[in-house]
C-alpha cells in the first residue's frame, strides 16, 4: 500500500505524527480565526515570530529557537491586541507595517550570518522530515494547553466573535479574550514553525477551517472536520512528496506539498458544498411545488 508504506521509516512516522498533532491544534484555533476574520492577523504573527527565531538561534543555538519564538510570539500578540484596539491607523495598514518591519529585522540579522539563504528557507517552510522526538513532545504539550484553554473559554469567545457589543454589554472582558486568541495563534506558530515553516502554518490555520465551513453550518461539526482536514492533508502531502521522490526522482518540498494538498481539499469541499446547496435548493423547490399543488 503506497499510502502507508512510507511511514515504516521512523523519520516519516515522526513527520506524520507532528502534522496530525498540528492539524488538530491549527484546526481548532483556525475555526476561531475564520469566525473572527483574523487571517491577516495570523499571517502577521507567522512573520513577526521570525526575529525571535533568529535572535534565539544567535543566543542559544538550536535549543534557543523555541524560546526566542515564544518570546517574540507572545510579545507581538500583545502588541497586536493593543494596536487593533486603538483605531488610529486602519487595522490592516498597521498589521502590514508590523509584519514587514519585524520580518525585516529578522532578515537583516540573518543576512549578517553565513549560510543566510539556507537558514531563511528553513524558516520559510521548515524541515518536517527532521522533526525530533523532543519537538514532538513540545508540540503535543502546546496543543493540549491551547485546546484546553479554548475549550474552557469557548462560550465567551463565540459570543465575542458573533456580537462584540453584546459581549461587552454582558460584562465579558473583550480585550482579554482577544489577547487569549492572539496568543493562541502565536503558540500555534511557535509550535509549528521549526517543523513546517511560516507558509505552512498560515495555510494550516486558514484552509482547513474554511473547507469545513463550506461543508457545514454547525460549529460542533466544523471544528472536528477542520482538524480532520488538516491531519488528512498532512498525511496526503507526505505520501505524495515521498512517492514523487522515490518513484519518479522528483524532489518536492514536503511542507509545500502539504499546503497544496490542503488547497486541493478546499477546492473539493467548495465543490461539494456547492453541489449540496444546489441539491437542497431544488429539493426545497420541489416540496414547495407539491405543497402548492
Amino acid at each position, binding site marked *: 500500500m503506497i499510502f502507508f508504506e512510507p511511514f515504516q521509516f521512523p523519520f516519516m512516522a515522526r513527520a506524520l505524527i507532528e502534522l496530525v498533532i498540528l492539524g488538530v491544534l491549527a484546526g481548532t484555533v483556525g475555526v476561531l480565526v475564520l469566525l473572527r476574520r483574523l487571517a491577516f492577523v495570523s499571517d502577521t504573527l507567522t512573520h513577526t515570530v521570525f526575529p525571535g527565531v533568529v535572535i534565539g538561534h544567535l543566543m542559544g543555538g538550536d535549543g534557543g529557537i523555541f524560546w526566542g519564538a515564544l518570546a517574540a510570539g507572545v510579545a507581538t500578540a500583545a502588541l497586536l491586541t493593543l494596536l487593533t484596539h486603538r483605531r488610529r491607523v486602519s487595522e490592516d495598514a498597521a498589521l502590514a507595517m508590523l509584519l514587514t518591519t519585524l520580518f525585516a529585522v529578522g532578515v537583516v540579522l540573518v543576512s549578517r550570518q553565513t549560510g543566510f539563504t539556507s537558514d531563511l528557507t528553513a524558516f520559510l517552510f521548515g524541515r518536517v522530515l527532521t522533526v525530533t522526538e523532543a519537538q514532538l513532545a513540545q508540540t503535543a504539550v502546546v496543543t493540549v494547553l491551547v485546546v484546553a484553554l479554548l475549550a474552557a473559554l469557548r462560550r465567551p469567545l463565540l459570543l465575542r466573535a458573533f456580537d462584540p457589543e453584546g459581549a461587552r454589554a454582558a460584562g465579558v472582558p473583550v480585550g482579554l479574550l482577544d489577547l487569549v486568541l492572539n496568543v493562541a495563534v502565536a503558540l500555534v506558530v511557535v509550535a509549528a514553525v521549526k517543523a513546517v515553516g511560516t507558509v505552512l502554518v498560515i495555510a494550516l490555520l486558514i*484552509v482547513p477551517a474554511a473547507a469545513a465551513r463550506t461543508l457545514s453550518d454547525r460549529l460542533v461539526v466544523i471544528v472536528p472536520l477542520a482538524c480532520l482536514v488538516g491531519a488528512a492533508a498532512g498525511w496526503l502531502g507526505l505520501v505524495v512528496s515521498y512517492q514523487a521522490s522515490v518513484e519518479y526522482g522528483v524532489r518536492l518540498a514536503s511542507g509545500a506539498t502539504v499546503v497544496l494538498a490542503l488547497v486541493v481539499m478546499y477546492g473539493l469541499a467548495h465543490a461539494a458544498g456547492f453541489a449540496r446547496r444546489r441539491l437542497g435548493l431544488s429539493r426545497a423547490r420541489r416540496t414547495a411545488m407539491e405543497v402548492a399543488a
Partner: protein
Amino acid sequence: MSWLDSTVHRAVVEAVLVGALGGVVGVFVIARRLPFFTMALTHATFPGIVVAAMLGVNLYLGGGLFGLLVVAAVLAFGRARGQDFTTATGIALSGGFALGVVLVSSQDGFTKDLAAYTVGDVLAVGTGDLVATGVVVVAVSLLLALLGKELLLTAFDPVGAAALGLPTLLLDFALLAAVEVTVVATVPALGTILAVALIVGPAATARLITDRLAPLFPIAAAIGVACALAGVWVSTLWNVATGASIALFVGLVFGVVFLGTAVRGRVRRATAANPA
C-alpha cells in the same frame, strides 16, 4: 562606459523608481483596504515567475499573468457562502506560495533562488529591469492621472458609481491590475514579503500626516523614495540585505510619525480640555 554600468547606480535608480511607484499606488491600496490582498499578490505571483524561469519566457510576463489568475480566484472564492474576502485572500496567499515552493524545490539551486525571491536583491537589477520598472511607473501614473476621479468614486461608493453608469467591474479590475504590475515591478528589488512594506508603508505614513487626498500622493512618493535610497545606502555600507534595510526604514519612519502624531493629538486634546 555609461553611468548605469555601476551596480550601485542601477540600484539607486531602481530604488527611486520603486519608491515613487509604491508610494503612489499605496495611496489607493490604503484607501481601498487592500494591504492583505497586496500581500497575497506578492506571494502568489511567485509560481508565475518560477514557471516563466523554467520555460525561459519573460519573468515579468509570467508573474503578471499568474497574478491576474490569482485576482480572479480570490474574487470567485470570496463570493462563497460563509467565506469572506480575507479568508479567500489567505488561501490564495498560502496556496500560491506553496505552488511556487514546490516548483522551485524540484529544480537545482533551490534554497538560493528561493531566498533571492523572498528577500530580493536590488543590487542585482540589470538595465532591462530598470526599463521594465520605468514602463510600469509611466503606465500606472498615466492610469491614475487619467482615471483618478472614476477610480476614486468606485473605491469610495461602488453602488453610487454603478448608479452613475460607471463600469465598476472594469475600474476595479484596472486598480487591482495596477497593484499587480506594481508588485511584479517591486518584487525583484525587495522580495515578496518586503515589497508590501514599500507599497503600504509610505502611503500609511502619509495618511497619518494629512487627511486630504491630493497631497497624499506626493508625500507618499517622497517617503518611498527617501526610504528606498536610505536602505540602499545602509545596505552597501554594512553589507546587510537591501530589501530588509529599505523595509526597516519604512517601518522606522512610520513608527516615528505615528508616535509624533499621537503626541500631537494628545497635546491638542489636553489644551482643548484646559483652555487656560
